[in-house]
């Protein structure tokens, strides 16, 4: 035997088996070498693998196993000891490593398994989160839909558009097959189909309002699922092939109802609902989800709000239109009233003139007549004519005054007059009528009645005359009795006007005049109307007695202005009548009583003497008018200077002139001149009296004259007598403002 270190294999070399083993070993080795390579490759590719050193270990184990199998290739035939040694080493290493690996795997495999469970857990969690996400997204979608729907609904204030838009948008958002709105009818007992999504003009289906399903829906503010077979859901002419889609109904509160195109409702105060029905497509398997129901409820509320806004807008538009109409009407009425007032003022202005002119003619001519040669009888007659015409003139003024009384413009005069004379004049005026009617008259003037009083003589006389005149007018027989006393406080209490409690004082006294007649009397029911303008009682019997029905109304106003009261009592028809009035008059001062009061009308005489040489200045820029005024004053004996302009007037005027007559018709110069004259003459005694002459019967002119410090105002035309009286009054009292 050779000495080789070869080792013989244990078994005999059977060729075929050997060959198969050889090949298998080869392949095993190959596989074992490639596995780590693959591992390395893939691990390098993946980022996550926590057990790198395990891999190394595993790799080593496999490599060694492979090496072992590779080396075993050489052991199939005779092989040297080196090979055997290498083989052994490899096997030893392989054993070590594989044991180590086995030991290690005990630790690792549970870890790997738990990784797997965690992975499963995380997958579940992820799925759940996904679902959650889906839900949130749907909610957000719903929210967006609601916002969009609301925006659409609220972008219009027209109720039809609102409702139509609601249905359309809901249909689009929720993908509905049909959507319909049932509105309550006028009677409130039925619901009528008013809007649908798919059908343009729904036929008038109605359902009674008290169906249980409807009550169920109305009683809750949630969207309620209803059966597709219920009457409210039977909207479609044909049913679906399979199941009809689910139907949901919700109530829509109707807050205010006004004009609705089809119906005409008045405002309904009790809660009234409409019904909105929504149907899912019939052949889908869709169900109503909670978020969809929520959407429907929110939309229903929004629709209610939008409808109420629309209603409010409608109402406010209507109110505004109404206000505008009223405004226009008021404006028209105001303009008409203004026109009426203008027309009245124009009428008054014209009538003023037209009525005064004949009166002036009568007065002027009568006064002229007075100056001629007359017998005593004729003179008496002329005097009566003159007095009556003066009174008539005053009456005419007062008819025009009454309208101004209404406006509150009238002011009473306050001057000293002889009270007893007033009564005497009234009596003398009424005497002719009394003697014709054969009515006796008795007059009692109380002894403590003052002789002189301060007040408006003209109007007091007018009042007394009116009252007495009425007594005479309405008496066919019997007697008339006039009493005048100073009213004492005690006597007030039994008067018929209890709320009137005047208090006399040192300056004033109250005059009480009572006129009793035994004539036809007055029906007590008519008494309240007596003082009403133009109201006449006893139309038939006294029509011929004349009178415009103004008399007592004017008297009442005068009496009231004089701070008093007037009233009439009668026990009935045929029992006579008593008229009483109380007025407040001033008590003149001691020192004035001694002077005889100024009587403006002197009995007719050609009194040239009174004014001999009185220096007067006439300023008038109208030549004709100036000449006439000059002629008038010359006729009265004055020494006249004339000025045709304000400069001339200021140049000429001096302290010698006692009176300056100034025409203020034409311009404002008159007032200027008055002021300049006032400035020129510091002391009042030196200054001439400045009197304005004007044809303008205007309160404004009078106020302006007073304002600039003029001493008087007289109205044109001026008769000789008037001028005479004016001059006398001016020289006496240094002031004379004629009543305009």
């Amino acid at each position: 035997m050779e000495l080789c270190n070869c080792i013989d294999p244990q078994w005999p070399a059977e060729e075929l088996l050997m060959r198969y083993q050889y090949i298998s070993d080869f392949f095993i080795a190959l596989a074992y070498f490639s596995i780590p390579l693959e591992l390395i490759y893939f691990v390098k590719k993946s980022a996550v693998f926590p057990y790198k050193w395990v891999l190394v270990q595993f790799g080593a184990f496999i490599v060694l196993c492979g090496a072992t199998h590779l080396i075993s290739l050489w052991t199939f035939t005779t092989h040297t000891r080196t090979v055997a040694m290498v083989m052994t080493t490899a096997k030893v290493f392989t054993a070590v490593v594989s044991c180590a690996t086995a030991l290690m795997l005990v630790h690792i495999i549970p870890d790997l398994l738990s990784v797997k469970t965690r992975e499963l857990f995380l997958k579940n969690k992820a799925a759940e989160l996904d679902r959650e996400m889906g839900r949130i997204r749907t909610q957000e979608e719903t929210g967006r839909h609601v916002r969009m729907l609301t925006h659409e609904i609220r972008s219009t204030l027209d109720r039809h558009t609102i409702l139509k838009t609601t249905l359309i948008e809901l249909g689009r958002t929720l993908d509905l097959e049909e959507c319909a709105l049932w509105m309550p009818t006028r009677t409130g007992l039925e619901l009528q189909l008013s809007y649908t999504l798919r059908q343009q003009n729904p036929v008038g289906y109605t359902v009674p309002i008290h169906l249980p399903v409807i009550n169920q829906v109305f009683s809750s503010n949630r969207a309620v699922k209803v059966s597709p077979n219920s009457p409210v859901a039977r909207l479609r002419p044909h049913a679906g092939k399979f199941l009809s889609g689910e139907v949901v109904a919700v109530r829509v509160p109707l807050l205010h109802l006004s004009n609705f195109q089809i119906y005409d409702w008045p405002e309904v105060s009790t809660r009234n609902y409409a019904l909105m029905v929504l149907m899912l497509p019939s052949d889908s398997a869709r169900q109503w989800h909670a978020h969809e129901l929520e959407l429907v409820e929110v939309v229903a509320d929004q629709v209610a709000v939008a409808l109420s806004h629309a209603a409010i807008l409608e109402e406010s538009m209507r109110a505004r239109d109404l206000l505008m109409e009223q405004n226009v009407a008021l404006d028209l009425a105001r303009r008409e009233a203004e026109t009426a007032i203008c027309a009245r003022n124009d009428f008054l202005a014209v009538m003023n003139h037209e009525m005064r002119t004949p009166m002036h003619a009568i007065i002027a001519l009568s006064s002229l007549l007075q100056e001629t040669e007359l017998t005593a009888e004729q003179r008496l007659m002329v005097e009566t004519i003159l007095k009556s015409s003066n009174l008539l003139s005053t009456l005419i003024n007062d008819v025009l005054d009454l309208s101004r009384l209404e406006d509150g413009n009238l002011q009473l005069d306050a001057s000293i007059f002889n009270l007893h004379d007033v009564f005497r004049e009234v009596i003398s005026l009424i005497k002719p009528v009394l003697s014709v009617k054969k009515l006796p008259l008795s007059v009692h003037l109380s002894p403590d009645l003052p002789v002189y009083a301060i007040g408006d003589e003209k109007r007091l006389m007018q009042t007394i005359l009116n009252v007495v005149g009425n007594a005479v007018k309405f008496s066919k027989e019997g007697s008339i009795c006039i009493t005048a006393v100073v009213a004492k406080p005690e006597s007030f209490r039994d008067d018929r006007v209890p709320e009137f409690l005047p208090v006399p004082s040192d300056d004033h006294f109250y005059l009480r005049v009572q006129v009793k007649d035994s004539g036809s009397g007055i029906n007590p029911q008519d008494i309240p109307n007596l003082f009403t303008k133009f109201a006449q009682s006893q139309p038939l019997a006294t029509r011929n007695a004349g009178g415009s029905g103004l008399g007592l109304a004017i008297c009442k106003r005068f009496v009231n202005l004089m701070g008093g009261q007037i009233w009439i009592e009668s026990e009935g028809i045929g029992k006579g009548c008593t008229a009483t009035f109380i007025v407040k008059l001033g008590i003149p001062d001691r020192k004035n009583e001694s002077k005889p009061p100024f009587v403006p009308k002197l009995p007719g005489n050609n009194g040239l003497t009174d004014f001999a040489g009185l220096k007067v200045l006439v300023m008038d820029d109208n030549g004709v008018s100036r000449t006439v005024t000059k002629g008038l004053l010359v006729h009265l004996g004055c020494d006249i200077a004339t000025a045709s302009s304000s400069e001339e007037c200021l140049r000429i005027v001096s302290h010698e002139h006692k009176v300056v007559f100034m025409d203020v018709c034409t311009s404002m110069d008159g007032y200027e001149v008055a002021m300049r004259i006032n400035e020129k003459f510091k002391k009042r005694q030196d200054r001439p009296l400045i009197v304005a002459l004007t044809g303008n019967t205007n309160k404004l002119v009078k106020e302006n004259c007073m304002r600039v410090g003029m001493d008087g105002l007289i109205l044109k035309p001026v008769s000789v007598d008037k001028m005479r009286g004016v001059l006398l009054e001016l020289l006496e009292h240094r002031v004379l403002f004629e009543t305009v």
Partner: protein
Amino acid sequence: MEVGQMQRQWVDYTKSLFLEGFLDSQFLQLQQLQDENNPDFVVEVVSLFFEDSERLLNDLTNSLDQQGIDYKKADAYVHQLKGSSSSIGAQRVKNCCIAFRNFCEQQNIDGCIRCLEQVKQEYCLVKNKLETLFGLERQIVAAGGSIPTMELSF
């Protein structure tokens, strides 16, 4: 013609003037102011009136002829005329002036022109009447009579 007849004629004529509204009570006032110290008062005043009015009517015609009418100035003229006519008692002239003033206030050019024509007409009429009257008076005085005082029966 003898004085009595002339005087009667004068009275009738004067009455007619009053009745027809040409003159009013103011004219009577003027007549009253005429006395021995002032024998021609009425004629003087009336002549003054004629002069004044003719001047005013001319001014008025000119002012209304212009392109841009100054209504205020026209109104002032009419006011003057109204004053004069009312001072002597020319009633119809005065009434026309009142209407004229209204149109001036309204600035109504057609109304103003119409009124101007009317005023002129009335003025001519009253001037003629007064001149006739004065003619009669002169005749009476020349024949040695005196102007009667007006009797009142209307």
